[in-house]
């Protein structure tokens, strides 16, 4: 056998499995979902069709587009909050912690929550923010409040707080990686040229960590867009997110075509964000070597 042929067989052998997996369990379901989104609902099932009624309904019925807008708003807020928290943390870990061992320990401490059940972590906030929760007990105990308030839980604030907490590690990781890649000599060079620490941060460190910020923001935004646990646990009446609606369309509402159309719109938004962020990252990609 010729070497090139042999190489091709080896490559096919290695890549074949994962490719087949992706094809069967990702592209086929997406294709099915895409097809369903043009079907017509006929309670309790649906009939094959090719019509845009489902999509039109999404943009005509305020019930749907308002949820979509709310989801985008929550996702933007969570992204901003997560980046705002993750950046100083990653900066501290990379530049301020002198001991490598301590740095690793702290980094692991940021990552460890990811190993704990997602549901459990979201549920924690219920016990903190609830009317019988830790926060209320504390405020009543200190006398700041006369009686427990239910202001903390079952609203969008609780949702942003919970989702931020859950997704912060996804922001810390890429920002940490991008800060760690910046050679120490660049900051030294800046200071050597008479520029103080703050201006050095703005002119050198921050621009060079933009790829990490973009990656973290993209993770957080996309994951928030598809979340349905936080609205369920801490969201309350006005807290439904798009994923909650999709879930109910495939569940109790038994409207698979509409659920599929909603899913497609979500997929489109997330893919747009990922593509944009990838473009931006590529445009700003620099050789730090």
């Amino acid at each position, binding site marked *: 056998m010729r070497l090139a042929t042999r190489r091709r067989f080896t490559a096919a052998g290695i890549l074949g499995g994962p490719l087949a997996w992706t094809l069967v369990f990702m592209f086929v379901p997406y294709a099915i979902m895409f097809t369903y989104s043009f079907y017509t609902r006929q309670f309790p099932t649906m009939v094959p069709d090719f019509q845009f009624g489902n999509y039109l309904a999404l943009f005509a019925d305020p019930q749907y587009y308002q949820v979509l807008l709310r989801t985008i708003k929550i996702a933007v807020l969570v992204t901003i909050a997560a980046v705002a928290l993750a950046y100083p943390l990653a900066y501290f870990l990379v530049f301020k912690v002198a001991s490598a061992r301590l740095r690793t320990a702290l980094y692991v401490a940021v990552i460890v929550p990811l190993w704990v059940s997602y549901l459990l972590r979201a549920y924690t906030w219920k016990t903190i923010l609830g009317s019988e929760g830790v926060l209320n007990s504390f405020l009543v105990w200190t006398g700041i409040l006369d009686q427990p308030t239910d202001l903390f839980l079952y609203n969008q604030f609780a949702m942003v707080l919970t989702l931020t907490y859950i997704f912060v590690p996804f922001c810390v990781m890429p920002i940490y990686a991008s800060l760690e890649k910046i050679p120490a000599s660049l900051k030294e060079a800046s*200071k050597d040229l008479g520029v103080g620490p703050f201006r050095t941060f703005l002119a050198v460190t921050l621009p060079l960590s933009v790829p990490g910020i973009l990656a973290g923001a993209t993770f957080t935004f996309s994951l928030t867009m598809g979340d349905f646990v936080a609205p369920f646990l801490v969201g309350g009446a006005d807290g439904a997110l798009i994923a909650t609606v999709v879930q109910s369309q495939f569940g109790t509402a038994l409207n698979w075509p509409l659920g599929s159309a909603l899913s497609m719109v979500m997929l489109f938004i997330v893919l747009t964000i990922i593509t944009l962020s990838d473009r931006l990252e590529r445009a700003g990609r620099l050789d730090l070597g």
Partner: protein
Amino acid sequence: MTDIIELRNLTKSFTGGIVAVNDLTFAVREGEFVTLLGPSGCGKTTTLRLVAGFEEPDAGRIVLGGRDVTDDPPYQRAVNTVFQDYALFPHMTVAQNVGYGLRIGGVARAEITGRVQDTLRMVDLLDKIDAMPNQLSGGQKQRVGLARAIIRRPKVLLLDEPLSALDVKLRESMQVELKHLHQRLGITFVLVTHDQKEALVMSDRVVVMDAGRIVQAGTPGELYDHPATPYVANFIGTSNLIPARVVGAQAGELLAEAGPLRLRAQADGTAHATGARVLLAVRPEKAILLPPGTATSGGASAIEGRVLERFFHGNAVRVSVDIGQAEPFMVDVQLQRALGEADMPGTGAAVLLAIEPGSVNVFADTAGVRA
């Protein structure tokens, strides 16, 4: 001339107890080109980083232009650094890199543009003014680093092994360029290098360091001809080191014995008692290779030997001669129009080495200092 940098009893150690700089006292005169020379780990880079302000000394003071700057952060010191890895800002163009310090320092835009162009012209890189660093070759990057460091007209320019990443040809031409730049700018240059040739070619004064201390400081010529220790004798250029014993002294000369050999050396002022163990150092080009049986002139020591190997260097031939010592003796013969490689004695040929007393440096042979 006044001292522009004064280092007083500077000490710096790192975690793990490594003493990088050990009680260093040293001054650099204004306008001088000084090189800190030594192998890696000798403390030369740490010394430079202390002057730049990137490291804080454990003890000692740093005085720059008459002002104590020991406690000043790097951005308040009137020095600029050329980095070994160039340290160019990858997200800025060449012009932005060079003008960086001025721009954030609040200098007017028009003035920055003019000064950036002037400085880039000085390093012959005006055509790359809008290029990004990753579009430049190593030599070009280092020119940008240089331009960026000199544009602020520092009192002292610190150069941290700036040429070590460049290939030999480029390195040699950059050495000449740096020297010219030093003459043109008139500012003080402090260079750190492990390359002794570079140090000899460029510097007014060379400071040889070892284990955080200064071993010897002097002009390149002084260091080469009168090394203070065997370490310097072998670090700067090469030396044949012959362990010997003093057998007598007379009329400003020392007579030493190494096995069957007897060598005359000019006494350098240091008294070596008869019977003392010494190291004799002879530069390969200072010995004269002669046919056996040639009568040598009055004072020179004559040593008989046998050729072991020959190494052709183009302009010279290094001949390795067995003189009955543990190490063969290296002698360089400069080739000339009438003296080609073919005229050199072949392997196994008997030869005579003539060594003038003035060409022999004598060191006390204390254990541990032998390089």
